Each structure stands twice: as C-alpha cells, then as structure tokens.
C-alpha cells in the first residue's frame, strides 16, 4: 500500500520533503516537478500570484488523483503539495513528486497528475501585475471569457 503525501500549505514548499516522501529502495526513478511563478509571460510582468482553495475538497481531489495514478502506473510513491496565499516570482506554487521502478511510468504519471491537478483540483489564482491590477486567471477555453 503506497500512502501519498498530500498537502496544502501557506508556506514555502519543502521540495526535499516531497522527494523524501517518494523515496523507495525499489524505485529507480524519482521525478519532481515544481511549478513556479513566472515573472514575465511574454511582455506582461507578474508581481505576484495569490492562490486560494476549497479547503478539504482540494485535498480530497489530490488524494483521489494520487490513488488513480498509483493504480494505473504501479507507482512506488506520490507527493503533491500545493501552496496557497501569495507566491512571488521564482517560488513554487505546486510540487508533484512520483517514483517508480522505471522512468517511463514516472514521466507518464507525473505529466498526467499535473494535467489533472490543473483541470479538477479546486484551487484558483489571481495575478497582481506591475500596475497593481488584480485579475483572476481562468483558462480561456473553460469560460470563453478573456
């Protein structure tokens, strides 16, 4: 039974804790993804991002995704940590770590987990730009709004 590490935190993400949580003597492959706030997206400058979540449900969805990934790719370990609150440029808002005997499973599972986290986990971000303007980030394809 692989028990995933699932965490929502207001503080800086401890990436070594994520890697340590998936370490396993039978896993030859350990993969850590860190999603960090970009200072520039094309020409536009981000001062900071502000994240919020649906407490409880966010963890439940992350746990559900972890269980699905463990079953599908026979993972040795999974860790998902999402930071909420203010995340300045260069700092991580999301850490996803997975381990498996061979690397193909880690890459497939890691990529799938990130896609699914972005698709279903109830977390939202606002961008504060250089001019101090605040606006919600929502994937255009989901709202049709720009």
């Amino acid at each position, binding site marked *: 039974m692989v028990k995933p590490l699932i965490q929502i935190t207001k503080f800086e993400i401890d990436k070594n804790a994520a890697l340590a949580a998936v370490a396993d003597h039978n896993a030859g492959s350990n993969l850590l993804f860190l999603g960090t706030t970009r200072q520039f997206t094309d020409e536009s400058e981000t001062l900071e991002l502000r994240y919020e979540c649906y407490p409880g449900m966010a963890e439940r969805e992350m746990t559900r995704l972890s269980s699905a990934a463990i079953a599908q790719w026979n993972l040795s370990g999974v860790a998902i940590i999402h930071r909420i609150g203010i995340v300045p440029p260069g700092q991580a808002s999301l850490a996803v770590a997975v381990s498996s005997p061979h690397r193909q499973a880690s890459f497939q599972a890691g990529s799938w987990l990130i896609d699914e986290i972005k698709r279903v986990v*109830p977390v939202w971000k606002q961008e504060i730009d250089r001019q101090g303007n605040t606006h919600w980030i*929502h994937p255009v394809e*989901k709202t049709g709004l720009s």
Partner: protein
Amino acid sequence: MMVQVLLFAQAREIAGHPMLHLEVRNGAVIRDVKAALAVTCPELGGLLPYCMFSIDQCYVGDGEVVTANSEIGCIPPVSGG
C-alpha cells in the same frame, strides 16, 4: 427547504459573500440550485454556465439531489498549479 451554497474565487467576489442561503423545493437537484442562484444573484449569471458543482466535496452533475444538510460548492473554472 433552505440550502447553503459555498462560493469561491470569482463567484464569491461577484456575489460579495462566501456563502448564500437559497430556498429550493424538497427533492431539488443541482439544476434547481443553479436556477435559484441566478435569481438570488443575477450578477452570477454569466459565470454559472462555466461553474462545476460539488456536494459534500465531491463533483456532481446537474441531476444530483441535494438536501438541507448538503455542503454545496459552486466552483468556478479552476486555475491551480
């Protein structure tokens, strides 16, 4: 019966509240909750078609039955990661 709907992110900002109390018929489903939301808070009308809904922290479809004890969530398009 009265139900409570939790609002998040843009939905909360538009409504001006993190939670709304709504009157719906006994045996109401999520579709009825959405209709009641749009009546109570017309400003949400533009966003609602893009929102997902949850009951007791699980995503549900429009036909899911709600009760007075349900924890109903109105979940605008997510943007975590």
